[in-house]
């Protein structure tokens, strides 16, 4: 099957187009570095696959996500490339376009964001641009889908490579032909492209070239050429010389094909930034935004809806099911599995779907608005003082939804140690699964201040992460070399309902699916463990296997306030996924719904113990899926184990301080 690759600068709308043209849906957001993996989808017409790649500025990668795009182009050969170009920032975007033209595969330019360009008074003569570059240019608005048909039409036609070439001047051209002479004729790459990339300092290409030309010779050639360029006085380095020549050509192309009418449209982005990035208001406003999000998620919207759902599940739904089971003549064993195991376990978690979807809705809204990059900017001062990078705040906020994509998002952080630190600390971010535990306990023990209590846990997670960052970065993850913090601040966009709802659903879907699979299975197993004991089946709960297992670790939890076997068993099963803590409790305490469970919990926990339990659940270990992604991203067993062990230790210490400290202060 034909494969067509989407390449272009970050945040230019590649994934938006991908979502329009294929049956799949991938993650879209208004900041640079949303896509961090190669994503494959089938065209709606079904006759080719489309490959979405992380955004790149040039073919010389700095960060891990950029490396993925370059490796794709080096090692897998797409039949056509669609280069998505941001029409409102044409000059910068064409730098990559020219490198892709030199790469030599058939190319099609999707001229995106023409709506924004137009509002800035930029008019692009696409026919002229196409002629100057020697490839088709299709104006599109990927966000609305306008122009997509034409893209498909162009893809259907037989594509040929462009003959576009830049004359880089005598010195460079000489070096290019010297490399060309030493390469075999039948390589799958254009020699000229390899040579130019090598002379531009592309280390991936250099590695490739060293298979055919000894590295010693390559270095010698590079230095010799660079010296010649220096002697002409035109540039200090080879890469900057090549950049300059290319840029002159781009300027002349733009001079011919782009007209700018000076139009003084209001710059909304700057106006908004004047408030959101205000010296004094910036950070308080961010905290206020987060507080509002939690108010909506809990007090104002989420909890009332959840209560209704809870009432429905425990009332009509389970009555109906009981009736149905009796009607079918199910044995009492089956009835118990379904009603005490599955309904309690799965239902107890599903009840929180409204809160979780509301939270995801707001996270999606933050992502698509353009505020994310500003948050990174606001936080950079604080983050750099603990050895992190402002950009690390983006994975953390995504982590409030789910830690797995949060950890993936750390790929855009250039500095390896900062990236590792971000990966290790992201699991501390309080994800939506943990929210089920808070929602349960906060409603049971802190009814009048639910969102405040929950907010305090989110603050606890961030403060713990920052303190640990300081500790780690000043001990074993010390780095002297400068890190980079250059972040694009894209224009604000009013998020579209269609995109918001889709992106909320895509995030929340995972939670619902988990309830139907993982938690379903887990509930059955947990119920069985509570139903069976050494003396046989249908034993007293306190004599069950689950109680034995829970008791074995309960002693450990005594100093932090919850030395009962029920808490121990819930936390143990919670390693699978943190919602399972809630499922297990529902099963253990044999309550039909969360309202009843809240009542029962009061007999086992005091308010202080409940808070200590929430803090422990927040921090104690990354869930199974998160551990897997840490392993994948760090490629190290050692760091994976470390992330589990340090979390256990810190959770214990913090809960100990909360519980014992609270008692000293007279709380209970």
């Amino acid at each position: 099957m034909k494969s067509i690759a989407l390449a272009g600068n970050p945040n230019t709308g590649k994934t938006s187009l991908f979502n329009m043209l294929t049956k799949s849906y991938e993650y879209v957001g208004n900041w640079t570095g949303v896509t961090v993996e190669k994503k494959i989808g089938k065209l709606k017409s079904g006759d080719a696959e489309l490959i979405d790649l992380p955004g790149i500025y040039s073919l010389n990668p700095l960060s891990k996500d950029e490396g993925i795009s370059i490796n794709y182009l080096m090692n897998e050969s797409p039949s056509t490339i669609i280069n998505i170009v941001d029409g409102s920032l044409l000059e910068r975007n064409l730098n990559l376009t020219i490198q892709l033209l030199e790469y030599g595969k058939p190319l099609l330019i999707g001229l995106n964001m023409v709506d924004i360009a137009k509002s800035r008074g930029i008019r692009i003569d696409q026919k002229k641009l196409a002629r100057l570059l020697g490839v088709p240019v299709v104006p599109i608005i990927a966000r609305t889908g306008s122009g997509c048909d034409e893209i498909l039409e162009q893809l259907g036609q037989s594509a040929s490579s462009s003959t576009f070439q830049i004359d880089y001047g005598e010195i460079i051209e000489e070096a290019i032909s010297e490399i060309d002479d030493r390469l075999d004729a039948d390589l799958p790459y254009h020699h000229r492209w390899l040579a130019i990339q090598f002379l531009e300092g592309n280390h991936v290409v250099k590695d490739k070239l060293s298979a055919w030309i000894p590295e010693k010779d390559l270095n010698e050639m590079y230095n010799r050429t660079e010296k010649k360029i220096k002697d002409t006085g035109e540039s200090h380095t080879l890469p900057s010389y090549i950049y300059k020549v290319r840029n002159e050509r781009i300027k002349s192309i733009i001079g011919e094909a782009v007209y700018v009418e000076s139009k003084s449209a209001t710059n909304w982005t700057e106006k908004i930034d004047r408030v959101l990035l205000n010296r004094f208001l910036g950070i308080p406003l961010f905290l206020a935004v987060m507080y509002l999000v939690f108010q909506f998620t809990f007090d104002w919207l989420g909890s009332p809806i959840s209560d209704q759902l809870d009432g429905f599940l425990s009332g009509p739904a389970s009555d109906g099911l009981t009736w149905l089971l009796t009607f079918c003549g199910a044995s009492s064993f089956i009835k118990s599995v379904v009603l005490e195991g599955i309904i309690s376990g799965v239902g107890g978690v599903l009840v929180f779907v409204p809160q979780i979807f509301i939270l995801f809705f707001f996270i999606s809204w933050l992502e698509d608005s353009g505020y994310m990059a500003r948050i990174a900017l606001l936080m950079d001062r604080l983050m750099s003082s603990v050895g992190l990078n402002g950009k690390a705040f983006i994975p953390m906020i995504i982590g409030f939804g789910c830690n797995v994509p949060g950890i993936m998002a750390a790929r855009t952080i250039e500095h390896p140690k900062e990236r590792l630190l971000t990966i290790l600390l992201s699991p501390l971010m309080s994800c939506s699964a943990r929210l089920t535990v808070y929602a349960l306990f906060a409603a049971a023990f802190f009814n009048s201040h639910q969102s405040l209590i929950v907010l305090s846990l989110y603050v606890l997670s961030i403060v713990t992460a920052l303190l640990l960052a300081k500790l780690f970065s000043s001990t074993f993850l010390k780095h002297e070399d400068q890190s980079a913090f250059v972040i694009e601040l894209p224009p604000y966009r009013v998020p579209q309902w269609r995109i918001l709802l889709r992106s909320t659903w895509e995030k929340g879907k995972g939670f619902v699916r988990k309830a139907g699979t993982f938690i379903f299975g887990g509930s059955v197993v947990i119920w069985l463990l509570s139903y069976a004991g050494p003396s046989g089946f249908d034993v007293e709960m306190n004599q069950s296997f689950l109680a034995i297992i829970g008791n074995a670790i309960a002693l450990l939890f005594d100093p932090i306030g919850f030395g009962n076997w029920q808490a121990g068993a819930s936390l143990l099963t919670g390693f699978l996924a943190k919602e399972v803590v809630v499922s297990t409790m529902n099963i253990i305490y044999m309550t039909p719904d969360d309202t009843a469970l809240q009542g029962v919990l009061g007999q086992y926990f005091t308010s202080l113990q409940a808070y200590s339990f929430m803090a422990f659940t927040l921090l104690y270990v990354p869930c199974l899926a998160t551990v897997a992604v840490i392993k994948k991203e760090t490629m190290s067993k050692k760091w994976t184990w470390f992330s589990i062990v340090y979390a256990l230790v810190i959770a214990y210490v913090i809960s100990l301080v909360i519980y014992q400290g609270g008692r000293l202060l007279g709380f209970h």
Partner: protein
Amino acid sequence: MTLSELEKGLQARIIDLSNISPLVRRRLLDLGILEGSIIRLIHRLPLRGAFALEVNHQEFGLRYAEAKRIEVEVV
């Protein structure tokens, strides 16, 4: 003068980028920012926090420590 001394709202031309770290220089080049570019200061966060700047209709953020190493002249 250096970029860090530039007043809010004013424009300046970059004259020397050679003192910043290569990584940052490369990233700036990615955004099309090099010697000769006209840069404008939009915001400056407190406590030597990050700067929000604009070049060619494109906003971006930079650290104080880097801005201090960029030589500019007001235009």
